[in-house]
């Protein structure tokens, strides 16, 4: 009995550790308290500040735009790279795979710093062009797209492409109509991974961003050092909002997966 209790207790304690800070902050984001612990009245002030302060709005929009743009580019480069490497000679493809591992294993601080030296110090590209920042994030995430597309290519039935060519398709249309649909799920998971990597990044952004631009990460880190309480508590609202959005996305994905499972079962039963 006690053993069962301990077994059940371990995950619960870990869950409390992981969630208590976020949830407590979420509760306080609806009050006018400037510090956790003080009991104050209910207000939506923090949420109003979050959406009406231009600085905050620009920072959030900029972060999302950067995430989407860099993820799109990363998906394009990573997918092309995976297809190219998959059909190349063994030597070439293993060389590409090895170099592809470098940004995956490397510390973000090192990646960001080395990109800054090459692009800004050596090549003299101004950070204000946003190019170092954009390509910094593409460098961070394209290898992960490559890694999520590669297994799909390996699972693919290679005779389908040949069949399409035999039936008169041009190589380009065979690629778009036969290969791409089969690796599409890998591209989608690579894309979403790229978005989350960009949203969570701090180090590459600090070393490559224009001085006047902030992502959520760099903004929050600077704001915690400052003493503007209105901004500080508005960030609690942002944290709560992101928490809710993440929960909704995960729930949605779970429901969809479950529905897909069920329709698979139905198909099996129909056979």
């Amino acid at each position, binding site marked *: 009995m006690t053993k069962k209790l301990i077994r059940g207790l371990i995950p619960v304690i870990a869950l409390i550790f*992981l969630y208590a*800070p976020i949830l407590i902050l979420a509760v306080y984001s609806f009050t006018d308290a400037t510090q956790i612990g003080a009991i104050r009245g209910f207000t939506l002030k923090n949420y109003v500040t979050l959406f009406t302060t231009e600085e905050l709005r620009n920072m959030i929009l900029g972060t999302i735009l950067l995430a989407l743009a860099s993820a799109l580019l990363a998906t394009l480069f990573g997918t092309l790279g995976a297809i190219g490497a998959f059909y190349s000679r063994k030597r070439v493809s293993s060389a*590409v795979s090895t170099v592809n591992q470098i940004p995956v294993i490397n510390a973000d601080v090192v*990646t960001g710093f080395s990109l800054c*030296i090459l692009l800004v110090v050596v090549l003299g590209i101004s950070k204000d062009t946003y190019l170092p920042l954009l390509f910094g994030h593409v460098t961070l995430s394209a290898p992960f797209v490559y890694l999520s597309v590669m297994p799909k290519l390996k699972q693919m039935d290679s005779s389908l492409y040949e069949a399409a060519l035999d039936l008169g398709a041009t190589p380009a249309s065979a690629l778009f109509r036969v290969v791409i649909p089969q690796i599409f799920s890998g591209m989608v998971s690579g894309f979403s991974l790229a978005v989350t990597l960009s949203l969570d990044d701090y180090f590459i952004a600090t070393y490559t961003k224009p001085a006047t631009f902030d992502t*959520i990460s760099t903004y929050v880190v600077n704001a915690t050092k400052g003493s503007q309480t209105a901004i500080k508590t508005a960030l609690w609202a942002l944290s709560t909002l992101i928490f809710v959005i993440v929960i909704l996305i995960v729930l949605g994905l779970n429901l969809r997966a479950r529905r897909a499972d069920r329709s698979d079962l139905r198909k099996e039963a129909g056979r």
Partner: protein
Amino acid sequence: MKFSRKTLGIPYIIFLLIFVVAPLLVLFYYAFTNGQGQFTFRNLTGFFTDPNTVGTLFYSLAIALVTTAVCLLIAYPVAYVLATSGLKSKGVIIMIFVLPMWINFSLRITALKEILTLIEGNLAFYPFLNSVIGMTYDFLPFMILPIYNTIVKLDGSLTEAARDLGADEKRAFLHVTLPLSLPGIISGVSMVFLPAMTNYVVLDMLYNSTYIMGSLIGSYFSAYNWHGGSMIALILLAIICVFTLVTNGMEEEDARAGGALL
């Protein structure tokens, strides 16, 4: 030019050359030159003869070791209990444990900071402890997930066989389950140890003013000292390489041992 599937890889190869290979070469060049562009070992010897920087190296190793140990001590029981439980929707439950991963880490650390401030009054009293708590809070899901994935795929009949052959529960766990979950532990450790050596923002946000390896790069960056910063980056890169080679080697050895077992 004739269209072929191979040529599709060319843009990515060029991309990797420009954004992955070239920055590393530039890093090497800057690490071994001084402000006048002359070749020098000064940056390297300077790092290992300055007690401050050597101290920083040991401090970051200490933080990384303790954080990894704490993460492992929490994550293993959690992953084990979840993976071996009879619950139907294990997938959903493990999702709940890794969900915080998708919330921006700086916002999560802000939340943790408020709680710690409430408990401790002043964060400055326990800088090392707070840094370890912060890193554990940040990296715990990365330790839970790989261990869970390994244990959940384990063949349950192996533990049963051990029990049938007379091993008690403890023995069966120590001699069967634990060794077989080693690959998960290794990949978890490699996902926690290296970030714990370099993620200096967690320390900054929790008011720990002691430097770790990452903070050195940050301070050289702020001082526009590209040569010093490059050397630190290079030393970190060397540590990462050694660490990766060791963990890969362990994984391979483990795979061979696992093969022998079956």
